[in-house]
């Protein structure tokens, strides 16, 4: 019924010492008591909590960790919404297994920018002796290793990792494993591992198959084979056929805590629209650009060519004329342009250059002065970001930049500067992942991304566990532009800012959402038509919210 193993290392030690035990009886007793202190005296106990003096986990985190160990048997998808502390849950599970002696060798795979942060947190918060992978020898030198998944999947690292047995493998930002044809997915599939934790807030982004691929890593066959999965569970790309059945099947491998389930108190979110009227020159620029885009959009669609640069331009022009200059310049170089188009573009470029003052930027400066506290300004564009920093500095406001491309050390440094020296942090979207800024409670959305998930990630930087004050969100909305519709749609129709999506991230493929928006704007003839189509869009979002995967 069971395998019976006798460990004889004591006998060996004794033989080396010459067969006669000698030593103090008091120490013998102390050793006996020490051993008893952290004994796993029952299967269900959670012993690591007594050994973590510096950490007070939230109840839902302890609950999750216990559930993974006791009910899901150590192979699980941790899919809490943003800001609920998935890292803590993964740390608790790892610590518990280490203390129970069930895990000795562990591999933690994370995005390159988070390697040092994970290593530090495991050491500081969990007293786990983890090391950051540095070179080829790290794989065999350390028992607990944090490494970048992109490094690991390449040789010689890949073969080094595949030749070992891991008691546990943890993958952070596991949505990077959504496609089973990628090297990421294949690496995890081929790794020899006992326990496996996949950590992500967004187990489904565009397609139900992504969920299937993640779960197949944990427990092949849990959702049947691909054919059966498609037949039984998938209605269309993003809509499950029988949510109830899927939920129960997925529930055996996935834990998903939602903010609204309570247990965790979040402070209030106060959302405000900051309406802005453009100056005459700015309005002229905007109208010219929009007209140009509308013409070009129809033409490109007919030729089935990419409209991406048009979408970008349309969005940039809402952000700041400054942001659009770069794209305009690139577009001018396109050899496929007709002369007419090229002339139009050159005109637009000159118009953009000659805008005398920037209403939106002036409004930011006023607002920042009025708030008189730490503020984070989010924009989608680096050009806007540089421009804002310059303009803020001109009016005597200290600001720092924050970008996704920064190395970990620089990110920490910028965060530090913001906390202690500067009033304003100007961040682009990508600056988000893994940085916590709870000491700040004012967010200005200088422009809004068209992707609801990214909005949530922005707010999630400040509105997370540890925030003690209500969070103020200021959405800039320029009258008479697409931006006005976007703010209206996201804030009033979908009520995104209050309901805290998390739902949306699962329901909506962000790409599809962006495309829908663009089509609405480009193909509608009148304001009334745009409004009608947006209503339909928001209705679709709301109804789908109740019946879809979100409830899993």
């Amino acid at each position: 019924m069971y395998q019976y193993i006798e460990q004889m290392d004591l006998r060996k030690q004794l033989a080396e010492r010459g067969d006669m035990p000698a030593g103090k009886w008091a120490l013998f007793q102390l050793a006996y008591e020490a051993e008893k202190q952290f004994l796993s005296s029952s299967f269900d106990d959670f012993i690591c909590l007594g050994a973590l003096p510096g950490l007070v986990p939230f109840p839902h985190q302890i609950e999750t960790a216990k559930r993974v160990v006791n009910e899901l048997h150590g192979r699980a998808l941790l899919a809490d919404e943003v800001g609920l502390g998935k890292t803590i849950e993964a740390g608790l599970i790892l610590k518990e297994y280490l203390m129970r002696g069930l895990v000795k060798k562990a591999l933690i795979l994370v995005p390159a920018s988070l390697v040092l942060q994970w290593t530090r947190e495991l050491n500081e918060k969990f007293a786990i002796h983890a090391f950051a992978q540095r070179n080829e020898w790290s794989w065999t030198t350390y028992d607990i290793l944090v490494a970048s998944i992109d490094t690991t999947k390449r040789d010689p690292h890949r073969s080094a990792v595949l030749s070992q047995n891991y008691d546990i493998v943890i993958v952070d930002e596991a949505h990077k494993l959504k496609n089973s044809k990628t090297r990421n997915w294949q690496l995890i599939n081929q790794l020899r591992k006992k326990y496996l934790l996949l950590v992500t807030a967004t187990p489904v982004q565009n397609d139900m198959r992504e969920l299937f691929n993640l779960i197949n890593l944990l427990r092949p066959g849990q959702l049947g084979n691909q054919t059966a999965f498609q037949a039984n569970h998938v209605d269309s790309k993003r809509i499950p056929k029988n949510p109830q059945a899927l939920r129960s099947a997925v529930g055996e491998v996935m834990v998903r805590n939602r903010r609204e389930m309570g247990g965790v108190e979040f402070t209030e979110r106060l959302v405000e629209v900051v309406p802005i009227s453009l100056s005459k020159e700015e309005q002229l620029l905007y109208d010219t650009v929009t007209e140009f885009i509308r013409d070009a959009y129809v033409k490109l669609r007919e030729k089935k060519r990419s409209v991406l640069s048009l979408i970008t331009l349309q969005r940039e022009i809402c952000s700041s004329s400054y942001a659009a200059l770069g794209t305009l310049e690139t577009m001018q170089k396109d050899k496929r342009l007709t002369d007419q188009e090229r002339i139009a573009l050159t005109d637009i470029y000159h118009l953009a250059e000659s805008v005398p003052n920037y209403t939106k930027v002036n409004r930011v400066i006023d607002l920042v002065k009025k708030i008189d506290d730490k503020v984070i300004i989010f924009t989608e564009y680096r050009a806007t970001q540089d421009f804002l920093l310059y303009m803020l500095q001109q009016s005597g406001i200290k600001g720092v930049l924050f970008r996704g491309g920064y190395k970990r050390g620089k990110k920490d440094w910028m965060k530090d500067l913001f906390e202690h020296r500067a009033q304003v942090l100007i961040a682009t979207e990508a600056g988000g992942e893994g940085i916590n800024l709870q000491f700040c409670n004012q967010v200005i959305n200088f422009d809004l991304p068209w992707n609801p998930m990214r909005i949530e990630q922005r707010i999630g930087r400040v509105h997370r566990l540890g925030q003690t004050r209500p969070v103020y969100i200021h959405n800039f909305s320029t009258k008479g532009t697409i931006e006005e519709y976007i703010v209206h749609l996201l804030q009033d129709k979908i009520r995104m800012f209050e309901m805290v999506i998390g739902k949306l991230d699962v329901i909506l493929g962000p790409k599809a959402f962006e495309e829908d928006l663009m089509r609405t704007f480009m193909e509608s003839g009148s304001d009334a038509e745009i409004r009608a189509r947006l209503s339909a869009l928001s209705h679709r979002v709301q109804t789908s919210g109740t019946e879809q995967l979100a409830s899993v």
Partner: protein
Amino acid sequence: MPFQSDLYMYCKRYFETVGATFLPAQEGALCVEIPRDVDKELTDRPFYWMWVEAMNENPPCTILYLTFSPELEPIDAPERAKPELITPGCYRMMRIYASAKTRGTFASTYESEGKLSPYAIFIVKISLISDRRQDFLESYAIDLTNLQVYGNVMEHLTKRKLQDERPLHAQIFPVPIDMDQIFTLLLQCVRLDVEERDHTWAKDAKKRLENELSKLDHYYLSILSSKEKVHAQQSPKELDRPFEKTLIENAQTNFESTTNSWSIEAERELRKAELIWRMEPKIEVRPQQIALAYLASAPV
């Protein structure tokens, strides 16, 4: 807080036994000067010691000032010592436990008077392991004169007065000791004890494992058989390809497009091995400590 004072008592006993010098400290705090060998075990700084030894330096012994309650203001800590708050599971405490465990693996001890006969005292850890784990710490004593075995002896022995030195006036029964024989006897007894335990957990674990294995088989068989079907269907007669078939092929390419050596069979074998590794019920028996005790009467 009672647990805190437990920690205090534990540390006090530990430092007493390892020969640390106690310096005056206010109530609720411990101030000790620790010998170098103990220092090496309690603080992880191998390079410092390497340097000390290479340079023939002779730094003064480290002084630790430990407090056991967050409310306690360390007012009388010596200049050389940084006050440290000791909490359950903190770094220093874990090092102390680890040090005690290495130092306490072997012992010999005596009762102070009477006619003493030798006993081998064992601490054995018994672990029931599947994907979870339960441990028991058992103690045994073997009377070396007649090889009689007693269980659960630590409870009784902690109450006896035992000393480290051989008493001058006691009469000691000399017995030749055959360690191999004693270990064999111990393991036999442990095995008998273990077999008598309730093993529902193992039955459950085994059942779960078999269940998982059959699910796995089912899954891979369904993939492999549909693969054969696909091959069969590829005969030129059947040109109208059903939608389902495309899906099956998609599922196949997931695996076939990977490196050539990695087949679906290999994946199946790996998943199977992982399941067994993770879930198979095992019982691990590990004698952890042994002491030779000269006792005037049987321990139980």
